Every structure is written in C-alpha cells, then in structure tokens.
C-alpha cells in the first residue's frame, strides 16, 4: 500500500497539522508520500521532507496551485492518485474543499474527519456533531480520507525524504482567487494551539472574556497561544452560549443556526 498526504501550508510555512496526518498514514501502514502543491513552496517541501515516516515528497510548484483552489488542486491529486491506495488530507477548510472533488473525479466515496484508524479500510469518525461515533468500512479501491488532527499525535522531525518535482499542470479557467482577509492575531490558529481555554457561563458576560487573555499569557509566552477564537455573546440564560468564531476541532458540538427550528409542516 502507498499513501499520499496532501501537505497543508499557510504563509509559506508547513502547517503542523500535516504531521498529524502523517501519523494517521503511519497507522494505516505503507509508503507515505507527501504532496506539496502551491506556488514558491520549496521551503515547505523541505520541511515536509524532514517529517518522520515520509518516504518521498512530491512538489507541484506552479502558479496554477497558488491558494490551493479546489479545481486545479483536485485535478492534480486525481492525476497522481493512480499510484496510491489512500489519499489523506487535513480536515481543514482546504482539505474539505479539495478531497471530495478528488473522490468524485475518481468515482469513489470519501471518508470525512476520521479520528481513529481501525485497519487499512476501516475508520472511526464522529457523526451527529460528535454525539455518536461511527465505524465505517470502505470497499473502494482508492480511499480518500480527511483526518481530524486531534485524533492523532504528530510525528516528529528527523527524516530526510527525497524531493521530486511533479510536472503536471492543471488548467483552470473557471475559478480565480480575488483576495483573502485573514484574522490578524498573535495567538496561534485554533487547530495548532497547544492549550485552549474556554470560558462559559461563569464568565458572567461577554466583556469578562478578556480575563482569559491574562491566563493565556501566564500559560505561555505572549507570542504563543493567542487567537480571538471566540466571539463572546451574552444572551438570556435560555440560549446562553458563546459562538465560536469557527468550529474548533476540539469541540464536539458545532453551533447550529441560532434560530429555532425549521417550519414544521402541518400534517
């Protein structure tokens, strides 16, 4: 078996989440190749080559893959997928955007957000927002999987995999990147945070959430864990919850739309 892992990267650096996916790939077992796609990604490829357990890094360095738009990236992975039994990616907005497209191009199912590997074709994944855990078995020849990073401990660094260029360039006349507005923050991204502090009802009201910043600073250097990961909301006790700025991989419950239920159809 051989496994292709799509490297996740932001701002010219390899995202730590990739090391968790390599760990999941190790549990499946087989040769592990990492695909680094993007524009100007040689430093990222070198970082990926240092991850333990990686046998080869394949680099698709082309303007077509800048910002990892779904259309060209999926075409690239589908092109390479013939060499592999499994294709894995982080269950991030990038992985979730690209991999289902790859799966459909290869006419196979995709398995989303696995939290454990039972065997090479059987995986555990949360359903109903984590209120149940399903064990699923794929009968497809190619398994396309996104990995929830919190289910797997990251692999270390110390490898020195070979780096090989991929020449395939996907045409894309359909989608164009316009711009990106990234939240500026001196705290890490939620998925990469070592410590997550959550405040609840005991905080009294939304303004008090800033008290948590002090604790965060005490727990790590100020440059370390910090992200406005909450949009604190104060509301009556019947609906009291703070709405995460986005769903955390560490929380099992996603916040659903704040309105009360859909119109019920009269019988």
């Amino acid at each position: 078996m051989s496994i292709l892992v799509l490297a996740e990267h932001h701002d010219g650096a390899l995202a730590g989440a990739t090391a968790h996916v390599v760990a999941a790939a190790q549990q499946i077992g087989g040769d592990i190749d990492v695909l680094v796609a993007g524009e100007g990604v040689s430093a990222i490829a070198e970082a990926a080559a240092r991850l333990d357990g990686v046998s080869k890094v394949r680099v698709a360095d082309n303007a077509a893959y800048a910002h990892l738009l779904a259309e060209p990236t999926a075409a690239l992975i589908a092109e390479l997928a013939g060499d592999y039994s499994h294709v894995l990616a982080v269950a991030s907005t990038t992985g979730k955007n690209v991999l289902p497209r790859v799966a459909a191009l290869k006419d196979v199912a995709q398995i989303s957000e696995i939290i454990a590997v039972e065997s090479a074709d059987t995986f555990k994944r949360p359903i109903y927002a984590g209120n149940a855990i399903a064990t699923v078995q794929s009968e497809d020849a190619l398994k396309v999987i996104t990995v929830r990073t919190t289910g797997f401990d990251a692999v270390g660094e110390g490898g020195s995999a070979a780096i090989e260029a991929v020449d395939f360039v996907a045409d894309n006349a359909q989608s164009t990147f316009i711009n990106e507005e990234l939240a500026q923050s001196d705290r890490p991204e939620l998925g990469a945070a070592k410590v997550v502090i959550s405040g609840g009802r005991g905080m009294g009201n939304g303004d008090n959430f800033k008290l948590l910043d002090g604790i965060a600073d005490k727990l790590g250097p100020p440059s370390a864990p910090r992200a406005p990961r909450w949009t604190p909301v104060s509301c009556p006790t019947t609906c009291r919850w703070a709405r995460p700025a986005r769903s955390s991989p560490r929380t099992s419950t996603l916040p659903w739309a704040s309105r009360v239920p859909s119109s019920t159809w009269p019988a």
Partner: protein
Amino acid sequence: MKILVAVKRVIDYNVKIRVKPDNSDVDLTNVKMAMNPFCEIAVEEAVRLKEKGVATEIVAVTVGPKAAQEQLRTALALGADRAIHVETDERVESLGAAKALAKLVEEEQPGLVILGKQAIDTDNNQTGQMLAALTGLPQGTFASEVKVEGEKVQVTREIDGGLQTVELTLPAIVTTDLRLNEPRYAKLPDIMKAKKKPLDVKTPADLGIEVASKVKLVKVEPPAERQGGVKVDSVDELVDKLKNEAKVIS
C-alpha cells in the same frame, strides 16, 4: 437564471440523538425530522437572489425516502417554484446524492446550484464538492457571501484563518456556511400555496444511476461518557492536576 437548490431531510437539530441498543445506527423511529439547517440557508439564499431579480426560477431537489417530500414542501413554502424528488429507500451517501444531482443539473441546466455545506446527521461535507467534480463546474464552498455579477459569481468563503474571496464562472456550485444569511419562517398562506406547487418524482433508475453507498456502516456507538467534574481546594491543586493529570500545560 435558474437556481437549483438541494435539500436533505435530517433529524431535527434540537433533538438529542440516541444510538440503537444493537449499535447498528442512530435510532430514528418517532423522531422529529426537519430540513438540514445548512439547506435552509441555501434555500433562503436562492429566494433572496430571486427577490433581487438575479434568479428567475428556483427548483428544489432532494434525494431520499418518500417522507423527504415534506422537506421539499418546506422549500416550496419558503419560495422555491417547483420541486424534484429522487425517491429511494437506499442509504444514500454523498457520492450517490451527487450523481443524482449531476443528472438533474444536466437536465435542468441551472445557472447556479446552491447546497448546504454539510448535513448535520452524517457530517460529511462532500456533496457540493462532488457535484462540482461530476459536472465539471467550479465550486465555492463554505460561502458567507454570494454576489452574482454578469457571467460570474463572487463567493466569499469562510476558511480556517478568515475569509477568502474567489470568482467563479457561471454555472457554478455554491455551498453555504452559517453566516451566509438567516433563513425566514414560512408563512401560513405560503405553506398552503406550496401544496399546489409542482413536485416531480423520479427514481435513480430513471436517471440511469445507482445511489447505494460503497461505504459500509459497521457500527455506531455513543461517544465516551463524560466524566463528572471535581472541585479543587486550591490553585496549586488545580495547576498540579492540569500539569500531571490532564497534561494540558507543562
């Protein structure tokens, strides 16, 4: 421009789910069902585009058992013009649904297809992307803003670090995130009118596809029971527990 909106019948999001005692699946007997919340947002977005004069017709589609027609009627009450039901009692997963939708896209030739980004039962987050691949159309997933300008659509996507805007050529596939809009409630007169709106029923065989899933559901278990909390006497004890028991700080 015609808009196709896909909706899914799922367990109501307020209902606390129970796993069947034999661990075969989640127990859905006598449970309140509703339209998937992300699909409601998709319907609402289509209706708003029609109100703005961008869209001329909204077709609501679902793939699933006969009872799913209730959700199509809900979509019709919210403002869809007609509905198509691909009826099947199979356990349909994303790829099967995407194949059915791809056939309907071919038949209906919509300018825009709007879907919810994920269903709150299987939490797969796949169908829109798969439909885009099968139809060869561009995709704008996790949309928090959709602007149609001439032959193109600008979609602002909610990504991990913030927001990303992409421009797609039409026709295109858009999947909705929570902040795209706040869906309206259906008014009683609209609910009554929706009963008279046309609803076509097709089978997967009519479309020439198979929807059965190749992913076997082996077992469904409740998540690990949450341990009760403990009260600590001092800050030192708390720090000690965080360090040595929970190992969250070092």
